[in-house]
């Protein structure tokens, strides 16, 4: 039964969904998560106007789950159905999220049961949140890299390093080392490039007596190597926002240490990989959709906000056999009417957490099995049959699916269902599906992991060979249960994205952070090593969400004293090997 079927009153439960928004992404890229701008875009709760009225909520509300409670400013939004609230992904949302992953590695980040009430308390600040989570210190030493005008340069065909669309047509204009224009990038991309020099980590730090002290790189690397070698079961995590070569070194390091290595797909499209392990997949690359797709389905994803160039590049573009938008039907399936849904020819709203039911009914409709229930997942049976017919009679149908399908209810079993649906549709016509990857190289992180370990993520080397047991070797589960004794974070911010319990356990172990900007995880770090940005200051290879590998360019030199991830990891490997007597 969904939330809105419960009786009214203050004991009523709401369903909480979390997710990316454009403002969350832009502020994160331009200002870092310590900024007021980030706070304003992430520490916020969206709620339906009637619900707000009924609860007496004015400008703020208190949200409580089984795991925690936060007070947040409220934004009224008609887009939300009654009984549902939305908090953008980030530490406030995660404070409410439980550690359990159902053995899938994926915490439940959507469809969470919460209580909402009006309150006069102050909204929870970032500092309060981090303190509750056990942060080792709250001082950050953000520095802007000095940008000096100089030689004017234009670099063509630059590949963007934000999301899994990997737009490779960017034109970047520089004046010295200042990036002054980004032509072709979406708003988030522009934000990332133009602000690359701001809020940087420009020195290595070691935490001594609770305070971060700047040190030279050798000392930081030595301390990091000591931490890793001393640990009995270290975890290396992140890797989706760095290049392929860095991924190879990170896995090599995990192998040398007999530790664990995992990437951010564990709480993103890891479930998609789990589903492929079970049944396979039917995929395509972008231009296949451009030239042939007369039916485009966006399921549980919101490209208008999370992958802003996606629709223009694929749906709008004229193809060889399909002349652009007017010859395509666009269907959006989601639990709330996102901005993407505004573009749809057909919008289907599902009850949260019920995707598997809907997928099963679609499969049954396609196979002419009788559907007895008049409504499935909140969708009338006739609509299910209508969509099934649309899919069968398409010439080439494509599904782009997002975290809405991976994160709720049956989790990876939803994806197993969608893949089977697509495989079954191939009896009738051509059909394919693609996961909308978030980070620019999370697909690459999976590819590297596969060719070195044979598994896509969550791989441990405790027995001196690679092993993946989802629910056991996944970072989310390891940290949620406190199963590891050291953490190396590369180009990622687990403190901002992991459930509360996992973050609390991070505070109890030594942590090394390698990053370009001041992430929230730096508040839990014992060693911080500055790194350059792949795609701006460091070259390297990355994989688009459809598996197409591209070469990230270097448009400026990294700041003096700052190395690229690849070089940092190489040095770390040498130091670790020396300590373990493994020579060169």
């Amino acid at each position, binding site marked *: 039964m969904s939330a809105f079927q419960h009786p009214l009153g203050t004991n009523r439960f709401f369903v909480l969904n979390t997710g990316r928004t454009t403002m969350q992404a832009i502020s994160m890229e331009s200002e870092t998560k310590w900024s007021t701008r980030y706070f304003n875009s992430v520490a916020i709760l969206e709620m339906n106007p009637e619900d707000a009225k009924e609860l007496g909520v004015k400008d703020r509300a208190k949200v409580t789950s089984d795991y925690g409670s936060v007070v947040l400013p409220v934004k009224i939004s008609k887009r939300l159905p009654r009984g549902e609230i939305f908090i953008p992904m980030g530490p406030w949302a995660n404070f409410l999220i439980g550690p359990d992953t159902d053995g899938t590695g994926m915490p439940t980040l959507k469809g969470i049961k919460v209580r909402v009430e009006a309150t006069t308390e102050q909204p929870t600040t970032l500092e309060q949140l981090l303190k509750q989570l056990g942060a080792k210190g709250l001082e950050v030493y953000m520095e802007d890299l000095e940008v000096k005008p100089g030689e004017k340069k234009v670099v*063509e*065909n630059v*590949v963007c390093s934000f999301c899994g669309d990997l737009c*490779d*047509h960017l034109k970047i204009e520089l004046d010295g080392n200042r990036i002054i224009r980004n032509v072709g990038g979406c708003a988030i991309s522009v934000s990332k490039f133009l602000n690359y020099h701001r809020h940087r980590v420009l020195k290595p730090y070691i935490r001594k007596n609770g305070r971060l002290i700047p040190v030279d790189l050798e000392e930081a690397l030595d301390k990091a190597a000591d931490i890793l070698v001393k640990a009995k079961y270290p975890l290396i995590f992140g890797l989706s926002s760095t290049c392929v070569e860095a991924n*190879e070194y990170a896995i*090599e390091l995990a*192998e*040398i240490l007999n530790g664990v290595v995992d990437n951010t797909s564990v709480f993103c499209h890891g479930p998609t*990989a789990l589903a*492929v*392990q*079970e049944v*396979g*997949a*039917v*995929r*395509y*690359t*972008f*231009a*296949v959709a*451009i*030239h*042939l797709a007369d039916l485009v389905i966006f399921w549980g994803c919101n490209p208008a906000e999370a992958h802003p160039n996606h629709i223009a*590049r*694929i749906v709008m573009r004229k193809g*060889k*056999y399909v002349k652009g938008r007017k010859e395509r039907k666009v269907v959006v399936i989601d639990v709330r009417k996102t901005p993407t849904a505004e573009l749809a020819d057909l919008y289907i709203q599902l009850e949260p957490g019920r995707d598997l039911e809907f997928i099963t009914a679609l499969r049954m409709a396609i196979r002419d099995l009788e559907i007895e229930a008049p409504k499935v997942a909140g969708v009338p049976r006739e609509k299910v049959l209508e969509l099934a017919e649309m899919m069968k009679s398409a010439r*080439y149908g494509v599904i782009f699916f997002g975290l809405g399908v991976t994160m709720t209810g049956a989790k990876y079993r939803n994806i197993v269902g969608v893949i089977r649906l697509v*495989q079954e549709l*191939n009896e009738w*016509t*051509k059909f*394919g599906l693609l996961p909308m990857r978030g980070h620019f190289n999370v697909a690459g992180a*999976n*590819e590297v992991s*596969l*060719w*070195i*370990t*044979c*598994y*896509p993520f969550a791989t441990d*080397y405790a*027995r*001196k*060979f*690679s*092993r*993946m047991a989802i629910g056991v070797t996944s970072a989310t589960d390891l940290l949620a249960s406190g199963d590891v004794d050291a953490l190396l974070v590369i180009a990622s911010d687990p403190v901002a994205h992991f459930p509360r319990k996992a973050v609390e356990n991070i505070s109890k172990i030594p942590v090394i952070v390698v990053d370009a900007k001041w992430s929230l995880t730096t508040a839990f770090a014992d060693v911080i090593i500055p790194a350059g940005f792949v795609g701006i200051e460091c070259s390297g*290879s990355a994989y688009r969400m459809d*598996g*197409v*590998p*591209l*070469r990230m360019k270097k448009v400026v030199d990294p700041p003096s004293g700052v190395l690229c991830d690849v070089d940092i990891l190489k040095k770390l490997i040498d130091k670790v*090997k020396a300590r373990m007597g*493994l020579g*060169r």
Partner: protein
Amino acid sequence: MTQILIKNGIVFDPINGINGEVMDIAIKNGKIVESTEIDESKAMIIDARGKVVMAGGIDIHSHIAGPKVNVGRLLRPEDHYLTNKPHVLPHRRAETGLTVPNVFRFGYEYARMGYTFVVEPATPPIKTRHTHEELNAIPIIDKAAFVLVDSNWIALDLISEASTELLAAYFAWLLSSTKTLALKLVDPGSDVAWLIKGKGIDLDDQIPGYDLTPRDIIREIGNASQLLRLPHKMHVHCNRLGYPGNYLTTLKTMDIVREIKRVDDGPALHITHVQFTGYKGDSWTTLRSGGEDIAEAMSRNPYVSLDLGQVIPGRPATTMTADAPFEFVLYHLTRWKWASADTEVETAAGIVPYVYRKRNYVNTIQWVIGLEVALISRDPWRIIPTTDHPNAGPFTDYPKMFAWLLSKKAREDDMRDMSQLALKRSALPSINTEFTLYDLAVMTRAAPAKLLGLEKRKGHLGVGADADVAIYDIDPREVEISKNYKKLIQAFKRTWLVIKDGVIVVKEGEVVKTIYGRTYYAEPVIPSDLEKEVKRVLEKKFKEYYSITLDSFIINEEEIRNPVKIKISTQLTR
């Protein structure tokens, strides 16, 4: 630099006509040199008495790297759980997997069998960077890749416009910009049909959207490859793969050499994994071997070479091929897992797990076909033993395959466990042919080196060759291989010593050092005005067809770990 002297080995070096002679092989600075150049007081002396010495083996068709191999790894975690070998650092990284192993197992297991060069036979152009990243990561062996061209929209446009020179120039550009060695055709034209209609086509069917047939494509690509004077002209996986009765398509495909305007002598066409396209009969229950017919066609047609795609019964496989329509059909037979990928403008791929069962009628006929082709045609210079890893069997089972080729008894012993009905309907049980060790050296060293055009530095032990040497612990003077084939299998499974570029990498069957080999690619030289014209065409086509820029497509030499450019002077630079 290191000097090695291998003394008194029993050498088999067909390119130099050496057939089991006891002689010394001298190595200096990574190359084979005259023995006189060695200072024995400074050299490492290896006593190879009673041991067979050959050049390192060359596998011209094995799926070891690239996007579909990686999807295969993802698809088959169950293939990885019990097939692990712990690392021994710093010498050896951990190994995992059987049919789709990790990069380390590929390199190490090939080295353990004495192979030092392996070709990835099918890479989609837009994803070839991925193929190279995996090839870069595979230790020890040298490698090369073949690029897929048959369902390529740009190529098809040029063929439709009858622009022969422009087509050749496009392929020259393609080989150079993807850093690949030869042109690959897979079920030619069928991936276009797959993308548009959801099924594959036969040799003389129309390709949807084009006024062309697969026959046209094979002929025109053949013509282009002749103009380019590519050492390995065309590597072809025939249409109708997997369908009973498809042997006729194979024979027709072989005949297309007649339609090709040949410039060079030597094979104009290489048919790959011919077993899969050697089916007689009209259904699975009436399946028969087309091996005899194919062997006969081979003897009449000197312009074709082939490799077997030999089935290994009783072993798991993970079928993976750019023949996407075929994989969809196989999925219907196995009804478990199926992965498929449509690649823009170029090709498609499919992956389906499979198991070959000894007593299964169809699987036994499949086993028969490869061996019949080899044993009946008896031309080791044009018939290469492969298992089309991992389609017909794991490459680690090659020694078993060698035993079947060299020993009738090996065949008979294994036939006892197979489908007797299938054997009754086949010629194989009555074939007495047994290849010799010399023939084996031809098929696994000399011939593939020649077929790839690398016979100057690979596949032989003459002066000037790369010092890639395999020493097997078997003495053919003491062991009668046709009776005692198990000793052959043992020796070839765990090579006694393997040297790569003058460095000892395997000792008594175990890898003792991880080094990295080279990647070979072709760069046919075309006149600059033609090159300019091709670039103009490409700028236009990329904007029209691709979802990436032309700039993103090109792979630079810096991206390849140890690149070796093979410059080819073409017929176009007259």
